[in-house]
């Protein structure tokens, strides 16, 4: 386990190398039908332990629905979702979710918001408070622990939300377009911050986005989802070395991957 993690830090694994390990998350032939309206047609995907996978797609393609189903917040119509060997039937302790908006409770300070999962899950407070502080420090908002959400900028609020999703030490982090409400500059900054936190904690991440650039910058692997039918049409392994930087987005290899993904989306729309 440690050797794999160590080798991963230096080198991005080959796709088949990732497959060898038991997947942390398995989505098998999952379908979702709302009142005869097909929201998702047969999605199958695996995410290996410690892998960062993005689901990329246009808005309305069902990628958020997929994430909510994995989080156990939305029922599935067919197929199955398995996390760490057990089937998902509802929300699970080993999952942390970051939503599109920060969803902080306005009457709680940053620290109280981050400690919210600890309260709900009845975990030992003192122990997790130290962990919360570590996370807040890593997210660079430890100077604002006693402030209320309305006193923070949008980026800082989303940082707090990420800390909240990680405080109870989940093994899987689900992120639903977490940076889409932020301005472009803050967005890039947050992506790099997220990578830094991810590098330190090595969670399995499933990241939903409609930004091709963001997907390439962050992920080990990108899955392209399309609407009508809502299914995965393309899979691409991103072999850019880690740690990654914003400067890499100007590299030719980076842009080749972005172009490849764009073409995949466009072709499917043309056809």
């Amino acid at each position, binding site marked *: 386990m440690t050797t794999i993690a160590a080798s991963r830090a230096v080198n991005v694994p080959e796709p088949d190398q990732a497959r060898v390990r038991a997947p942390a998350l398995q989505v098998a032939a999952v379908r979702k039908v709302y009142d005869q309206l097909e929201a998702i047609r047969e999605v199958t995907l695996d995410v290996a332990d410690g892998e960062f996978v993005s689901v990329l797609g246009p808005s309305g393609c069902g990628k958020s629905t997929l994430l909510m189903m994995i989080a156990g917040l939305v029922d599935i119509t067919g197929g199955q979702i398995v996390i760490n060997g057990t089937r998902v039937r509802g929300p699970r*302790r080993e999952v942390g979710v970051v939503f599109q908006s920060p*969803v902080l*409770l306005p009457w709680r300070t940053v620290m109280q918001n981050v400690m919210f999962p600890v309260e*709900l899950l009845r975990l030992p407070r003192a122990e997790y408070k130290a962990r919360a502080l570590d996370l807040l420090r890593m997210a660079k908002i430890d100077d604002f622990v006693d402030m209320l959400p309305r006193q923070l900028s949008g980026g800082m609020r989303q940082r707090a939300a990420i800390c909240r999703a990680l405080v109870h030490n989940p093994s899987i982090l689900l992120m639903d377009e977490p940076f889409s409400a932020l301005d472009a500059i803050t967005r890039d900054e947050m992506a790099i911050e997220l990578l830094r936190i991810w590098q330190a904690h090595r969670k399995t991440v499933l990241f939903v986005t409609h930004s091709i650039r963001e997907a390439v910058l962050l992920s080990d692997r990108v899955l392209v989802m399309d609407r009508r039918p809502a299914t995965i049409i393309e899979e691409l392994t991103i072999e850019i070395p880690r740690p990654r930087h914003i400067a890499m987005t100007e590299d030719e290899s980076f842009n080749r991957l972005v172009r490849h993904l764009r073409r995949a989306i466009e072709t499917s729309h043309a056809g």
Partner: protein
Amino acid sequence: MPANLSRHFTTAFWPTLFTVLGLVVWEVTVRTMGIRSIILPPPSEIFETMVARYDLLLDHLWPSLYLTVLGFLFAVVGGILVAIVITYSEVIRLGFYPVIVVSQVIPKIAIAPLFVVWFGTGTLSSLLLAFLISFFPMTINSAMGFQSVDEDIQRMARTFMGTRWQIFWKIRMPNALPYIFGGMKISITLAIIGVIVAEFVASQEGIGYLIKLAGGLLDTPLMMAAITVLSIAGLALYWLIAVAESRAIYWQPPAEAIGGGG
């Protein structure tokens, strides 16, 4: 603090000026036109009456105030409890809640004589009318507060497997607080109306009784003194709630505070 103080000063300055100006115009008009005080006493005479007969006014103010506050408190507690039931019981929400809302078309004041028939001319009628009239806005506002929790917040809490109990105390209750205070501000003024009307109809004491009595004696200065005392008391009660609100709902900037609620 000094900046805060000066801001309060400027917001209070113009309304105070206009009030004083209005009183001066009133005083001068009454005096120059020789309007008899039985029709419209000047402010100075009302003030003199308040000073001269303060013990009479206070004797009648206390029972009214006591019943107002008591009826209001029952309405607050009852309204919040009923709102909780409405929030958690689908049967009540779909069956009973619309009835409550539609029953709002009944002018509660019209029920006052009926209450006298049922509960006699004592304090019970006043108390019940104060309760009844202030109970509805309390219920409706609180129910709205408990139910208006942002969908994303509910989802977020579900991902951490929050129990109903946890979600009620940690999310629904604080979410409802601004609405509850909005309801309280409406209810306290209504509770006063309820008590006064009940005292008009049937009572041997209270400010409502005193106003009616003074009216019968054509003692207009006393009537207006009683009305003034009542207004001051009402304002004080409203102010107490507003202060409690700004303390309790510390997370809202003052400008955004929900004033009227629903």
